[in-house]
């Protein structure tokens, strides 16, 4: 096996996450799929860091993790406040701006 195996695995996992975002209706599960996509990109960054022999890719993966943590905190707070007002965590029910 070569380093390409890791990259292909990351691509497949990214796709699964993207399909999950499109298919699932529960806002929390959609968030988990986004986390999966971010993680697979991190795997790509770490693999390229190894290929180039520098630590820069690892630092970028580190920053991605920090941003993902901030995003999750705010996103889950938004989901909670939407749930409080609409009693639903489904992305189909938050459609007030549509009309």
């Amino acid at each position, binding site marked *: *096996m*070569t*380093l*390409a*195996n*890791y*990259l*292909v*695995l990351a691509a*497949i*996992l990214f*796709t*699964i996450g*993207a*399909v*999950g975002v*499109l*298919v*699932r209706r*529960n806002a*929390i*599960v959609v968030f*988990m*799929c986004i*986390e*999966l996509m971010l*993680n697979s990109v*991190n*795997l790509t960054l*770490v693999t390229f*860091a*190894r*290929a*180039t*022999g520098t*630590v*820069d890719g*690892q*630092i970028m*993966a*580190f*920053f991605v*993790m*920090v*941003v993902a*943590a*901030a*995003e*999750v*905190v*705010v996103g*889950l*707070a938004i*989901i*909670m*406040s939407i*749930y*409080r007002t609409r009693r639903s*965590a*489904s992305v189909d029910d938050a459609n007030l701006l549509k009309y």
Partner: protein
Amino acid sequence: MTQTLGAGEAVVFWVLGPIALAGALGMVFSRNAVHSALWLVNTMLAFGVFYVVQQAPFLGAVQIIVYTGAIMILFLFVLMLVGRDTSDSVVETLRGQRVAATVLGVAFAALVGAGIARATQDLPAGGLGNEGGPANIPAIAELLFTKYLLAFEVTSALLITAAVGAMVLAHIEREPDSRRTQKELSRARFLTSNHPQTLPGPGVFARANSVAVPAILPDGTRSEASLATGIEPEEPDQMRRPTGREELGSRDAALGTLDPAPLDGNDR
């Protein structure tokens, strides 16, 4: 020039790769959101091992501590707050959306996977040398505080903003005097129900203290109020009760102040 990796790493990859893949698929296909979270934990742990194998031990530790330790626990907290029974509806709101998404996903995976595999099949596995091993954390620290110092500082601003934003979003505004006092609460409890005290706990006076075991009242009957909701009540082996008197079930029988009753066996 094709650089093949070591056999040990290949074993790790071919064991953990399918596990990560199964975790991702299980996350997308689970009906229950809690199961989705647990599948994702599976994938993230596999990723942590991948990072360690790929000469990033610091990131591997951060992955396991931050992602599986903190972020997924946050997900589970919110799932419990929101209620885990708010599962997905099976109804498709857009016709054919699921099929279209799957086709799109397979096509995208094939395109990107094939493209990456072709483009990077000669990727040299240069390796980080000492920086991928013991000197990994000093190397990261040096870059983080020199070349990426600005990004690092902006990150701190981002984190504090996210924390404040989450507090603002999750905060509930209450009127100053809207909270009911203890006196009002107890008055409401006595006026509205005929059961002012707490409900009997499960298993009290019974021979087991599982939540599934109903409490036994002094007269030997089961207390329906002690049954937990959502759990099938189970009947434990009860101690043999005295059978000498015809008023079995009276208060004396349970307290043992009856005449010694003839027992069938010597199980007392």
